[in-house]
C-alpha cells in the first residue's frame, strides 16, 4: 500500500495541464477514482463531430 501511495504521489506531482496518467488498481483505490469528477466527454464529442463534418 505504501509503495502504491508513493507511486501515486509521484505520478500526481508530474501531472501537468492537458496530460494524463494511468493508475494501477491499487493507486486507483487510494485516489478514490469512483468519487472524482468524470472527464467531460461531451467536449471530445463536439470536437470529433466537427472533424467528421469536414
Amino acid at each position: 500500500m505504501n509503495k502504491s501511495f508513493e507511486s501515486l504521489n509521484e505520478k500526481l506531482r508530474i501531472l501537468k495541464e492537458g496530460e494524463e496518467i494511468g493508475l494501477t488498481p491499487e493507486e486507483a483505490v487510494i485516489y478514490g477514482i469512483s468519487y472524482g469528477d468524470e472527464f467531460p466527454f461531451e467536449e471530445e464529442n463536439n470536437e470529433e463531430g466537427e472533424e467528421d463534418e469536414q
Partner: protein
Amino acid sequence: MNNKVKSLHEQVAAALIEKLEKGTAPWQKPWNSVSTDFSLPYNAITGNRYKGINIFSLLNSGREDPRWLTFKQADSKGWQINKGEKGTLVQFVKTHDLIPKLDENGKKVVDENGKSIKVRTPLERAIVTAAWVFNAEQVSGIPKLELKPQLKSDWDPIVRAEDLVLLSGAVVNHRKGDEAYYSLRSDSITMPLKEQFTTPDRYYATLLHELGHWTGHQDRLNRSLFNRFGSEGYAREELRAEIASMLIGDEFKIGHDPGQHAAYVKGWIEMLKNNPYEIHAAATDAEKIFSYLLDFERKRELNQQTTNKSQQKNESKLFIGDIIPYKDSVYKVTSQLKRGRLQMEVEDTGKKFVLSKNDRLYQSLLDVKNGNDIKTPAISKNNEEVQKASYGLKR
C-alpha cells in the same frame, strides 16, 4: 515540501494551511440556508457540483461566483474567456473511453446527423487528467448568476433532512445540554433538544454532521473511529465529517454550522504539513459519506418507481379477485382462462360467462376499476357497500 513542481493536493494543502491559521478554511465558515448566500462550485453548463479535491482548488481561488467551466465549454456557448485570465487547475478521472462504433465492414456507424456513434468502453486502467477551468467572473457573455436550480428535489429542505435521518435508521436520542455526538459504543447519536437550536436548519445541520460520523461504523463505511480526543485520528475523522457537512449543507440547502474547531485546528495544520495528500483523502472520504447517505434517498425513489410501475401494470388489466360494480350489476373475475380470457361471475345473479379483452365490457370494467368511467355511476342507489367497492377494489 521541496522546490519541485507541486501536485494539486500539495498546492491545495499549502493554501488551506494558511486559511486554517486565519480561521478561514471553507469548512470553518458558517453559512445559512438562504441559497443565495453560498454554493459549492459547480459546472456552469451541466450544473454538476465539482467533487473531492477540486472543490478546494476552486474555493481557494476566492471567486464569489460558484460557476466554473472549461475553455471549450465557454466556446461552445459563444462566451469568451477574458484576455489574460488564468485558469484554475482541476483533475478529471476517466474509467472508460468513447470508441467509434464500427459496422461489419469496419466503417464508422453514424447517426441521422452524420455524426459518429460512440460506444462506452471500459479502460484497462483508470486515468487521471489535469485541466484548467475558468470562473464565470472571468468569462464575457455568460448570463448573470441565478439561483442554482433544484435538480433533484423541490422538497422542503427540513422535511428532506428529517426523512433522510429516518431512512438511515440511525438511533437518535435527545438530551438537554450542549453536546451533540455520535457514540460508537452504543452506535447512536445524542442531540440537544430541538428547542435549544435557534432555527430548524441549525438543528438538522448538526444532526447530519453527526450522521456523517455514524457512517464510519464498521458495518457501514468502516472508518477508524477508535480515537482519543485530541489525537491525530480524532482530527482526521472530524475533518471528514466537516467536509461531508459542507456537501450535505449545499445539497440540502440547510447551510453549514461548523463545530468548535479550536481543538482541531492545530491537528489539521500538522496533519496537512506532514501529509498534504490528507486533504485529497479527506475530501474523497467526505464524498463517500455524502454518497452513502444520499443512497438512502435513491433507494426509496427506486422502490417508489417500482411500486408505481406495478400499480400501472395492475391498472392496465383485470385480475382474478377484482370485483367491479358496473351499471346495475357487480362483476367478479373468478379465474384466468387461456389466451388472456377471464371467467366472470355476476355476483347478484350468479351468472357465469367468459370475457375477452376484445369485448366492450372488458374496457368498460377496466375504466370503472381505474376510476375513468364518467358516464356510468355504476352504483346501485340503495347499496352503500357497492358504492365503496367502486372506489376501493377488493382483492
